[in-house]
Each structure stands twice: as structure tokens, then as C-alpha cells.
């Protein structure tokens, strides 16, 4: 009895092409995701147009005007070297955001590749890759970051690698799981039977189809990376001065938390805002991309 399969066959047609639109529509209906997105956009704009927004150069010192509380001239006050904290925060968004984005990009490219290989080939390849991932994962992330950044020395790229390294495991696991999920689906088998090369199959079919969970994971981990960068700065590793990285600003001012709270509070607020925004956006994306969570 084939009942109404003829009807349902027709209904499935439009499903695929409108998926992106559906995701966007669902996202737009989620107020907290929209707030997150707006904040992220504002931060990105702030980073791009930093020279136009910041009233002073970020490294402009005034040793006669140090540790001043917020005033009309310096709306967030000045630091130990008399630099304008607001300007430093504005410029700092460049470093904090790019560290976040790039470290996550770095870890996701490596993690996704490894995950795709592991999930696609299975067997020995899977075993080897996953054992490697197990090894990395069993060393707590922040310790790994500390050790690597000590080995590589300070600097932007090195900090980025140190922070990204630990995040590889999550991207790899997510990717592998979703590849395993779609591995036996028809379109893949069709591609395989069409004699497409393995590389082509992985890049054209496997990766795009497993992108959703990885994207969600990546959005969430940007916040974590920014936080870890602050933690590294806390220990005295990370980016070199006078780069106004937010974490470094906080940890530099933490001894002054009682006498000059503005030096810690404002960068703290911005870190919090950024992490919060990425988390809200990530939550929204997850809900929008997850067909199971359809209301």
C-alpha cells in the first residue's frame, strides 16, 4: 500500500534550497541571537574603524596625567602611563577579535580536516587520529596553551597558535561525528559510485554537509578563546606591549582593582560583552540549525 507517498514526494522538493533562508528566518525571530549579532557587528565595526573612533592614539602616553578616573576628556579614564583607556579598548578590539577569529579559524581548519579524514576513512586512520585527539584532550587546555606559548615565545601568531591548539579537538570531534552521520547517506554513495575522487568527495560533499555543528561550535569557542587569551595575559604570557589586548589590560590593572577600578572594569566589560555576544549568537545559530529543535 503506497498510500499518499505521491503527495509527500512533491512536498520534499523545496526543502533543500530554502534551508539557508529558513535558518536566517529562524535566526531573525530569535531576539537574543539578534542582539548577539548586532553586538558582534558593532565590535567588528569598532575594530575596522578604530582610528576614526578612538579619540587618541592607543599608545599616546602622558606621564603627567596617569591613573585618572573617567572624565570628559578621557571617558574611561587613563592608565598607569596616562594613555586613554577608551582608545586602547577601541584598538584592543582589533587584537582581541582577531585573536578570537583567527585562533578558531586555525583550530577549525586543522580540526575539521582531521575530523573529516577520521570520519570518512574510518578504520586505522580514524584510530590514529582519534588517539592523537585523545592525547591532546587529556591535557587540560589552558595548560597546553601555557606550555605552547612558552615554547613558541610571545607574539601575536604564537599566541594564536597556542590558543588554537587546544580547540582542535572539539572541531575534530564535531566534524567526525557529523561525517559519520552522513557517511552512508545516498548522495554520498552516489558520488562514490560516480567515481569522484576522495578529495573531491570530502571537500564538495562531506565538509559542506557537516558544516552546521562545526559552525555553532566555532562561534561559541571564539568567546572561549578571547577568555583564554585574557587568562594567558594573567599569567604574563601572550601579546607584547604596548599592544592593547583586553586581557592584558585587565591583568595589567588587576593590582589596581581597588584604587583605579576603571582600569580593570572597562576592559572587563568589553570582554564580557564580546563573549556574551558570541555565546548568544552561537545559541541562536544552534537553535536555528537544529531541525530537531523546531518549535
Amino acid at each position, binding site marked *: 500500500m503506497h498510500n499518499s507517498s505521491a503527495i509527500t514526494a512533491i512536498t520534499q522538493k523545496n526543502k533543500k534550497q530554502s534551508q539557508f533562508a529558513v535558518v536566517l528566518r529562524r535566526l531573525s525571530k530569535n531576539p537574543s541571537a539578534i542582539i548577539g549579532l548586532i553586538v558582534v557587528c558593532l565590535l567588528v565595526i569598532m575594530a575596522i574603524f578604530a582610528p576614526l573612533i578612538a579619540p587618541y592614539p592607543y599608545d599616546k602616553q602622558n606621564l603627567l596625567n596617569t591613573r585618572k578616573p573617567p572624565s570628559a576628556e578621557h571617558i574611561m579614564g587613563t592608565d598607569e602611563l596616562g594613555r586613554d583607556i577608551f582608545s586602547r579598548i577601541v584598538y584592543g578590539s582589533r587584537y582581541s577579535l582577531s585573536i578570537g577569529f583567527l585562533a578558531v579559524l586555525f583550530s577549525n581548519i586543522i580540526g575539521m580536516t582531521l575530523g573529516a579524514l577520521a570520519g570518512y576513512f574510518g578504520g586505522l586512520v580514524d584510530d590514529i587520529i582519534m588517539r592523537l585527539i585523545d592525547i591532546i584532550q587529556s591535557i587540560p587546555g589552558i595548560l597546553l596553551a601555557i606550555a605552547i606559548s*612558552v615554547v613558541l*615565545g610571545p607574539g601575536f601568531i604564537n599566541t594564536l597558535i597556542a590558543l588554537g591548539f587546544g580547540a582542535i579537538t572539539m572541531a575534530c570531534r564535531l566534524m567526525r561525528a557529523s561525517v559519520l552521520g552522513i557517511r552512508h547517506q545516498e548522495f554520498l554513495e552516489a558520488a562514490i559510485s560516480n567515481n569522484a575522487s576522495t578529495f573531491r568527495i570530502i571537500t564538495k560533499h562531506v565538509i559542506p554537509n557537516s558544516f552546521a555543528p562545526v559552525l555553532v561550535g566555532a562561534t561559541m569557542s571564539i568567546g572561549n578563546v578571547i577568555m583564554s587569551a585574557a*587568562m594567558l595575559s594573567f599569567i604574563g604570557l601572550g601579546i607584547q606591549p604596548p599592544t592593547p589586548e583586553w586581557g592584558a589590560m585587565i591583568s595589567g590593572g588587576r593590582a589596581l582593582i581597588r584604587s583605579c577600578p576603571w582600569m580593570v572594569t572597562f576592559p572587563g566589560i568589553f570582554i564580557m560583552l564580546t563573549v556574551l555576544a558570541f*555565546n548568544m549568537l552561537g545559541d541562536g545559530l544552534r537553535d536555528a540549525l537544529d531541525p530537531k529543535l523546531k518549535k
Partner: protein
Amino acid sequence: MGRYILKRLIWMIPVVLGVTILVFSIMYLIPGDPAKMMLSPEATPEEIAAKREELGLNEPYLVRLGKFLGGIVFRFDFGDSWVYNQPVTKELLNRFPRTLTIAVICIGLQIIIGIPLGIIAAVNQNGLGDRISMFIALFGISLPNFWIALMLILFFSVKLGWLPPFGIDGFKYYILPCIANAFPGIATQARQTRSSMLEVIRSDYITTARAKGMSELQILLKHALPNALLPVITIIGNGMGMLLAGTVVIESIFSIPGIGMYLVGGINSRDYNIVQSSVIFLALAFTFIMLLVDLAYAFIDPRIKAQFARKHKRGHHA
């Protein structure tokens, strides 16, 4: 089941071995000479060379690695700390309980605060309770823990004088560090519980239970929660691993001599044995906890148990 545990325990060997080699290599590559760190700044090159010889730093990579591994495998000896002049194992065992105490209390807080928060949020999905608890949770994740720690100290120790600001002289001393450290964990736990709970609440078997005439509370406790807890257990396991190490910052602020401080001190003074051993110790603890988590999983979820049984059978054929 016993076979599975055994197999998992055996699997731990290559992982821990890998961790050992990885951390050993990192320490091998790390710049900074331990001999120089140990001697006074005025030490002559000859004195430094002699110290290096004494510490065995002049031997090639493989020889040093071999000796280190040999010590662990054959004598369960992680070597001596150069800075402390003490067997590392002894100091680790001294310090581990403190780090573990913090981690366990944090896990406890995560469970007793995070899970109910997540349940409240899920049950009132999109309601006021949901929004408030999730906002708290997001804040918990977004605040740097050292900032929380300093604020807690200022409020509870300086202003109110209720709790000691640092030290390890009793239970009271662990309250602030644990709260500061548990914040992100509570938040993660609440969010995970919520989403896992939401998924479960939408399941057909919850509707089935409802159709049976059960009250919402009965459904929540008997059907929803046990199912929702499965992914939550994983988070607890992962969180435990994170907490064990994440106490680095907290230990430093509260002057708690735990493994985290030991490790960071080891990195700073280039005391290789401390770093290597602490990381291996933490990795062992972490893999062991993950094993416990998997077993707990199997205990709760008969499907996983069945999988173990199947794997085991398949292992026989192979």
C-alpha cells in the same frame, strides 16, 4: 562489562604514553636553562655546564626520554623536583587532594545549582524563569574567573569579613575559591541541562508518560530527568578535567598550593620533572574520570551497555 573496563584501562596506556611523550617534547623544546635557573646569576659557564651534566641535560633527547619513561614504568618514579629537592610523586600526592577538593566541590556546586537552573529554564522554556536563568548562565561563562575571585574576596572577606581571603587551613578557606571557580561550570551545566532537557521534553515517550496520566512532576523526575542527565554526565566529566587544571588561576589568587600552582611554578623554574609529572598525573586523572563517566553512562543507559556488549563480541571475531 569487566572485559570492557579492562579494555578501556589498557587503552589508557597509549594515551598516557602519548601525553608523556608530548609533554616531554614540549619541555625539551622549551627555551630557558634549568641549570641557570638553579644557580645564582653570577654563576660561571663552567659551573653551569657542571650543573647541566649533573641534571643529565646534556644527554640526547631519546636517552632522556627513555630514562624518564623507564623510571615511571619500572619504578613508578617520576623523578625528583630540582627546585624542591623532593620526589615529585610525594609532593603531587600532597597537593592533589587540595586541587581535587576544589574540583569536587565545584562539581557539587555545578550539580546542585546548574542542573536545577537548567531544569527550571527548560520547563519554563521562553518564560521569565528561562530567560533569567539563562542570562545568569551566560554571564557566568562570560566573566573572567580571576575577576570574580577578586570581587568575591573584596566583598566577603574585606567588606563582610565572613570568609578568609586565602590559605588552606580548613573548610572555610575553600568556599570562596570554589565559588569563583565553579561559576563557569555552573553556567555550562545549566545551559547543557536546559538544551538536553528541552530535547527530552519534546520526545514521544514524554507524551506517552503524559498520556498515562502522570503528573508533570512525576514525568520530570521519572522520565525526563534520567534521560536528560546522559549528556549532562559527559559535561560533568569534561568539567572535572577542566576544573582540575583551571584551578591554576584560582590557586594563585587564593594562595592554595595545589597541582596547578605546582605546575606553573615548574614551568617558570624549568623544573622539567614537575611539569612532566603533573601533566601526566592530570591526564591520568582525566582519562580515569572519563572512564568513570562512560561507565556511569552505561549504568544509566542500557543501550550503551548493549553497545559495549556488542563491541566486545565484535572484538572476539576480529
